[in-house]
């Protein structure tokens, strides 16, 4: 227990901002922008406050807040942070304000937009910090609502359908998730992630589930797995993603890809793996194939897209699949040295953060192109934009290279560590995944050439002002962070290293 509930403050500050906006029906658009941005930045502030109280060398959860909630379900209001959750809180604190900045001029009815956006931000924080299923699931599910309305009301022509599809898919996953946890509760009497992981570590969990019936450990694992796999999304549960990301307004796509896709990966790391280690080990080979499928097909599909937003969307599937590839490789085992496993896991965490930065920056870039091009965002709709908007072209290029994984930029470190780790366990998987990197480079370079090079053509033939104002502020800070974490990844690594060491120490010895 800490004296100051800093994690609660982190979660509820965006909601307080949303409430403030909701209570001011006649606020001007510019005032509502300021309020939304300040409330959104509160996460970064709260994240730093939490960092200052956080001891990275200590194991276990810190800044814990735990209060009884529902006695008959033994549910608790339970927040706690470790290196992984803090990194994701910081990521949220970076991507969310950037997303708001990217929507600065584009979003009509900014007050409502800001309310929904801030609610969404608070939900994501709740997911990253809650340690009790009842508490966690509340935020997990609630996040769908603002996301649904943000896509539907501010999105493009096909937004209604995309939003509906997105919510139905995710809810289908959640129903399985809920059922799985209902079963876990029946078997163990607990909804507490920490307690369940502890039970799983000493083998009690599977035994208790098996007491219900021989196939229940597998069935329950499958239920929880499906719920998380849809959210990530893991291939082949990804079909909701491209339309949702493509139809959402740019600022919302930034948040969806930067933060919400991490909710699923986080679920894999925080829930599925610790609670079902044996089942994951047993299923590791097919899971590796699925992750590889995401890596390869995501990249190939991105190559085939002419809609730039869909291209980035597919590349997101590719990039997020790397994180899962690493996790599945570790659970497949056996690895020769502990360093292999910790590099894979550390790489996965870094990749979550870095993909958040680079993918959201790229969505921002496409959003800028879209607004300049009067709603057009096909790869053939532009040409020679670099001469008209050199700053924009430069920043966009850096974001692309970060996404490809150029050394010196943030994307490199995470992918390198993942490849190193996966290679130690499943060289064939690492080799195949390299193909993904190659294709990624191919489609980003195509994007770059067709849009920025050559004679000015299409939508960029007319007046094409360079990036400025809020867009520049957002993209500029994202790019600055790409350099920062590319040059000094240890800033992040130091936060989660003890955590990863602990994870690896808990694994079965090779």
């Amino acid at each position, binding site marked *: 227990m800490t004296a100051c509930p800093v994690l609660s403050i982190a979660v509820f500050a965006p909601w307080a901002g949303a409430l403030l906006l909701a209570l001011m029906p006649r606020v001007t658009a510019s005032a509502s922008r300021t309020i939304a941005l300040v409330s959104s930045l509160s996460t970064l502030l709260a994240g730093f406050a939490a960092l200052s109280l956080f001891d990275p060398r200590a194991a276990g959860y810190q800044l814990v807040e735990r209060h009884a909630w529902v006695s008959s379900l033994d549910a608790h209001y339970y927040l706690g942070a470790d290196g992984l959750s803090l990194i994701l809180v910081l990521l949220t604190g970076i991507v969310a304000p950037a997303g708001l900045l990217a929507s600065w001029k584009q979003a009509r009815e900014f007050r409502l937009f800001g309310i929904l956006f801030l609610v969404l931000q608070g939900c994501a924080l709740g997911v990253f910090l809650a340690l009790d299923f009842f508490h966690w699931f509340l935020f997990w599910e*609630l996040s769908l609502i603002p996301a649904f309305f943000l896509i539907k009301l501010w999105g493009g022509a096909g937004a209604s359908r995309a939003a509906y599809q997105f919510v139905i898919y995710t809810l289908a996953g959640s129903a399985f998730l809920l059922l799985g946890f209902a079963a876990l509760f029946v078997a163990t009497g607990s909804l507490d992630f920490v307690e369940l992981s502890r039970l799983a570590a000493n083998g009690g969990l599977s035994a208790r589930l098996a007491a219900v019936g021989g196939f229940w450990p597998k069935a329950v694992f499958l239920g929880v797995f499906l719920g998380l796999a849809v959210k990530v999304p893991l291939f082949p549960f990804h079909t909701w993603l491209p339309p949702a990301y493509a139809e959402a307004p740019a600022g919302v796509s930034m948040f969806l890809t930067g933060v919400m896709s991490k909710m699923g990966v986080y679920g894999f790391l925080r829930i599925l793996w610790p609670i079902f280690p044996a089942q994951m080990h047993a299923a590791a080979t097919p899971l590796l194939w699925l992750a590889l499928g995401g890596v390869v097909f995501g990249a190939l599909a991105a190559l085939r897209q002419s809609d730039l937003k869909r291209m980035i969307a597919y590349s997101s599937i590719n990039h997020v699949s790397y994180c899962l590839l690493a996790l599945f490789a570790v659970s497949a085992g056996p690895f020769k040295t502990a360093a292999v496993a910790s590099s894979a896991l550390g790489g996965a965490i870094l990749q979550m953060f870095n993909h958040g930065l680079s993918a959201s920056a790229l969505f921002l870039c496409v959003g800028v192109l879209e607004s300049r091009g009067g709603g057009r965002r096909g790869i053939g709709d532009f040409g020679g934009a670099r001469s008209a908007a050199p700053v924009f072209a430069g920043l966009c290029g850096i974001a692309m290279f970060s996404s490809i994984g150029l050394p010196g930029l943030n994307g490199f470190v995470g992918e390198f560590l993942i490849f190193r780790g996966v290679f130690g366990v499943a060289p064939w998987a690492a080799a195949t995944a390299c193909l993904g990197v190659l294709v990624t480079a191919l489609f980003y370079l195509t994007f770059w050439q067709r849009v920025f090079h050559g004679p000015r053509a299409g939508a960029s033939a007319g007046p094409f002002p360079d990036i400025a104002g809020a867009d520049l502020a957002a993209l500029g800070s994202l790019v600055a962070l790409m350099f920062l974490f590319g040059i000094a990844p240890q800033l992040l690594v130091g936060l989660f290293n003890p955590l990863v060491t602990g994870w690896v120490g808990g694994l079965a010895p090779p």
Partner: protein
Amino acid sequence: MSLLPWTIYLSIAGALASLAAGRRSATAARWVALATAVAAWGVVLAAAAGFSPSAVPQTLVDLDWIPSMGGRYHLAADGISMTLLVLTGLAATAGILFSWNIGERTGEFFAFYLTLIAGVYGVFLSADALLFFVFYELAIVPKYFLIAIWGSTNREYGAMKLALYSFAGSALVLAGLLWAYAAGGAHSFALPDLAAAAAGFPAGRQVAMFALVFFGFAVLAGLFPFHTWAPTGHVAAPTGASMLLAGVVMKLGAYGCLRVAMPLFPAGLAFWQPAIGWLAVAGILYAGLVALVQDDCKFVIGYSSVSHMGFVMLGLAAANPRAVAGAVLQMFSHGVIAGLLFAVVGRMVYDRTHTRRLEDLRLLPLYRLLPFGATVFAVAGLASMGFPGFSGFPAELSILVGAWQASPLWAAAAALGVLIAAAFTLRVVQLTFFGGAGDGETTVRSAALPPITWPERAGGILLICAAVVIGLKPDLLLNWIVPSLQSPLFRAVIKGGGP
């Protein structure tokens, strides 16, 4: 606490008063009705504040009534009754707020309305089976008139069907109770006496008696396949009556199953348990799928009520403390949420646009024209989908957990039901309010919708607050419900690990 019987007397007095006031002015009748409902609810809340949960119902009044038959005027309350009394007060108050625009024979409308409420309070307080039955009938009769006189689509048909189903159900209940009374020879209708007598019956007889009483009540609870009165009745009823019908009247059936049928005939429950569970699951899935393809948005809500009541029945069928506590919580939750949904569709939308067809509504950008209605409907939709943070979630989670203990297959099927509920709820919310988003032409045609009035605002906010408060703090009710399930009467039927 001892004032609780006044809920019944106040409601009857209010019915007479609003009838009298209605002769002078409609406004007076409305205010009389509202004051009555609020006063009765106030009595409940005051009692709730001082209520200390106990296993055995706490007797409030116990007088000789029909000495020749051993019928007593015995009112008592435990945590389950308290939960449903709070719901009744809430639903009655909100229902009156949403009936504010009844302009035709206003006094009579509220007289019937409050009589129904008096019957409902009576049922939830009765500790004597005969008295229970009398109040049960008192609640059914006014329903017919409310629908037949003030209803809309197909009102004669809906009212008649509902009345016939209800009476058929009550006939079964009465037959079962009289049989148990006569066969037992205890000369008493008190539930413990009947249970003691029934304990001596051979199992076959208990099975038959249980079937009569349970399925008789289950008709009113909307158990599949006895549910068909519900959608037509809900659709035909005026808004306030739909709210009561779905909100509290269906609960009377479920409450009868729990309070009367289950404790009296444990052997009967043991025999019928699998059948009830599967019927409940069938209802959840079937009604959900039917709701998915309706074109009239009130039918969607009507079928969703059947689906949600399926969860209540599933909880009862699972017959373990967690599932039954979840079932009672679900009764409360569904009462609030169904009331809210009917209020939006019937009062806010239909009374303004004069259409409930989704085909028509999808052409209107209603979320711009009625932002308050859109917000309330979206929130109510979430609550109805069983979203965390609303009362449906702890209820359905408890039922799922409890059902899992009874049969994992039930739980799996019910989880599928949650998903279907999400699908049809999203569909109806989307088509009703958000269909015409960005469609400029129709905006002009429909720009002149009357604004939302204060009673609608007050009623909507009241119900949403209830759903959220119980959703975030279900212990407020569970701490009443759970001890009640320890009562000696339930000991034989509700088994398994404690919550």
